[in-house]
């Protein structure tokens, strides 16, 4: 073929070799084979999915890191509670012997009161502001000293509340009973009045949720008073109903050694794997006031030590022992969850490695190949430039005189 001008071919060759050099340089400098979707559309799309999976794994790991300290706090608290209950059992056993004097029993009762107080303190443990035994109610201490009567902020002698006083639709009033360990939650509907609330309380008493005698009345000051009508039965009342105002314990009505659980009976679960959820804690109500009631059994022991017979003290001590077994039983799922979290953390670590490896194979450059490509591209580019420098200036005119 007749060749007239080699410049366009040389320019094309230089362009090609410089593009190859640029691509090889980019691979070596970034360590990536795919820097933009057009470099490898399939790998780029798979990378999007893989990065999302990585973000999920990172998040699960982060969730475990958040959960484990909370669960450790709960476990440590339960451990302390177990120790305290063993102490209470020892005290009860010593009080049940016929040799203990009345004075000794009073001293022992005082010590058991201290144990109870300590257990409640442990049950109110928190980690970074999260009350670990509050169920889903994690922002306030789950165990509160109970009183026999609570009165509303609203209402006065001059402007008393009445049975017909309308409640605010959607407002919630809760009554937590220290004796039953249950909580009644009343959500006011449109048209509900104080009388509706009173009826709901009566129904809760009938159902055993609240202690017998618990009722709502309008007191002499025109306020709504919710009480147990017993100096030994305590409740905790709260309300966000503007028609009632905040409910506060009536002065002097606190019941000794009575603590109501104001937390939630349900606990949150947290996802720590694509198909793995764990309960973040256990409910304080389930731990201490349901089944073999820890607080109730300690109260019974205190009462027995203060005024009961040796047999009654022995029976109360046995009840505490049952409560200890209950607590130990409740600890098992928590410990199991912690074990699963530790295993899952290890698995996620492996998963992170797998995904990182997958991502490297998707978009990463093989450094040995990249370096070889760079050397080859450098060589080709040098050769093209050298050839261009030799060929372009050559013409017949150089040889004509």
């Amino acid at each position: 073929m007749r060749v007239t001008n080699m410049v366009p071919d040389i320019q094309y060759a230089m362009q090609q070799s410089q593009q190859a050099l640029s691509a090889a340089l980019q691979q070596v400098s970034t360590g990536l084979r795919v820097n933009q979707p057009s470099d490898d559309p399939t790998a780029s799309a798979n990378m999007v999915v893989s990065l999302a999976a990585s973000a999920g794994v990172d998040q699960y790991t982060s969730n475990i890191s958040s959960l484990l300290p909370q669960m450790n706090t709960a476990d440590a608290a339960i451990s302390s509670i177990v120790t305290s209950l063993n102490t209470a059992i020892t005290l009860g056993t010593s009080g049940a012997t016929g040799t203990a004097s009345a004075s000794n029993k009073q001293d022992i009762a005082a010590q058991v009161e201290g144990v109870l107080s300590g257990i409640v303190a442990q049950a109110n443990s928190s980690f970074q502001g999260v009350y670990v035994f509050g169920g889903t109610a994690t922002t306030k201490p789950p165990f509160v000293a109970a009183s026999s009567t609570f009165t509303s902020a609203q209402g006065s002698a001059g402007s008393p509340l009445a049975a017909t006083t309308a409640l605010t639709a959607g407002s919630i009033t809760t009554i937590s009973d220290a004796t039953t360990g249950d909580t009644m939650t009343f959500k006011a509907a449109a048209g509900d009045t104080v009388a509706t609330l009173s009826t709901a309380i009566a129904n809760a008493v009938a159902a055993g949720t609240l202690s017998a005698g618990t009722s709502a009345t309008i007191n002499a000051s025109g306020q709504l008073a919710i009480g147990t009508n017993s100096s030994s039965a305590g409740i905790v009342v709260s309300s966000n109903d503007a028609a009632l105002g905040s409910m506060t314990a009536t002065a002097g009505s606190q019941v000794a050694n009575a603590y109501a659980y104001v937390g939630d009976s349900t606990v949150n679960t947290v996802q720590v794997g694509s198909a793995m959820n764990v309960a973040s804690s256990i409910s304080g109500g389930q731990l201490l006031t349901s089944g073999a009631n820890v607080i109730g059994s300690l109260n019974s022991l205190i009462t027995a030590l203060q005024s009961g017979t040796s047999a009654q003290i022995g029976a109360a001590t046995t009840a505490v022992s049952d409560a200890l077994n209950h607590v130990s039983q409740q600890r098992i799922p928590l410990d199991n969850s912690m074990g699963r979290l530790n295993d899952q953390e290890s698995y996620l670590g492996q998963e992170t490695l797998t995904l990182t490896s997958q991502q490297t194979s998707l978009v990463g450059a093989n450094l040995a190949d990249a370096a070889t490509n760079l050397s080859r591209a450098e060589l080709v580019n040098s050769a093209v430039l050298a050839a261009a420098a030799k060929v372009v200036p050559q013409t017949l005119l150089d040889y004509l005189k």
Partner: protein
Amino acid sequence: MASLSTSLLTAVQSLGAASGALQVTNNNIANANTPGYSRQVAILQEAASTNDGGFSVGNGVVLEGFQSIRDELVQTQIQQETQTQSGANAELASMQQIQPTFTTSSQDIGTEMSAMFSSISTLSTNPTSSADGQAVLTAGQNLATAFNTASSTLTSQQAGLNTQVGQDVSEINHITQQIAALNPQIAQLNATGQNGGTVEDQQNQLVLELSTLTSVAVTKTANGVTLTTGNGTPLVVGSGSFTLSTTTGSNGMQQVLDQNGTNVTASLTGGDLGGTIQARDKTIPGLLTQLDTLANQFGTAINAAQAKGFNQSGSAGQDFFNVPTTVAGSAAGISVAITDPSQIAASSDGTAGSNGNLANLSAVQTTTLPGGETPGNTYANLVYQVGSLTANASAESGATTASLLQLNDQLSSVSGVSIDQESANLITYQTAYEAAARVVSTIQGLFTITLSMGTAAAE
């Protein structure tokens, strides 16, 4: 018997032929780097012989004229390949500007989507945490912004291409006018049996320039070229050029009309205009529809999950995202609807500390959208398409560049000027001229001797 005068005439003709050939060589050298120039050659022909005393005697050389050397087939192939290349380049240029938006970064849609689900998961460990709730809102805003940015990139690219349509049409009209103006000159040259030469070179170069703008069918006649678009819309016939015009269509985009006012936009292919229209009317709208669908379906799914739960006040969850009522414009219009972290419907039972509904929000990540894929996979498909479209345009551009180089080499082998060849020709014709001049000089000497024959005898 041939006379000295006849020989002198032959030598003078030879001088003229060599001089003409030198002029052609000179012109070739001068235009060696002129785009579109086809080398010319001098047509030299042996002069008719005469019968002199029973012998046939040659009468030298005659310069018949000059001829441009062309290969019409290769020229047509170059025009067609140029149309393909320009179309691919136009698409590639727009895709290269779109691609960074869909490249994995700290702010692309995929990353922001993952970040949002991560923040929801974090909130599940402490659903009453205001800071964690705020992180969910921020992540939602970042994701909405990523959708907005991607949509804005596509629409602003589309707007830029729309402007380009008007510019291309204006350029096409300018070139077709120039081509039409050359047709009468070519017709005149053809009528007198002359080679098109420079005028035809100019016209070929203009047709090539036109090929960079749009696909044209070229028909060569004795009256010059006839040009039509791919669908037969005439652009140049004889000395007349038929201008294209633009008008704003119902979609707000420039539509191309032929001289009869018929909308020919969809039929224009190839060249910068064809590639621009393809990217503006098909490629980008296709991507935009997918992006809008993803934004709409994702926002709707999150809102549906939000509606299943309760906020920190115990009220039913309200929309998390403001999602436009129509799919079109959803990516541009999506925004976060709630302003307070307490409005996140984390609770499944109305209590503030419950995180039960966050599982519903998280589940959107793995739930199939009405489009048939999860949000992540839908976005991954979009990334694949952007990458694939860019890679295909790049491959086509690269392939046509190589093909064009080869075709240009082919054309150059026929029509191109070789400085070396022309230098050799220069020597050849210089020598011929010198030799002819020597003949003239010799005959002149013979004349002198002949005329002095009598004078010398008298002395």
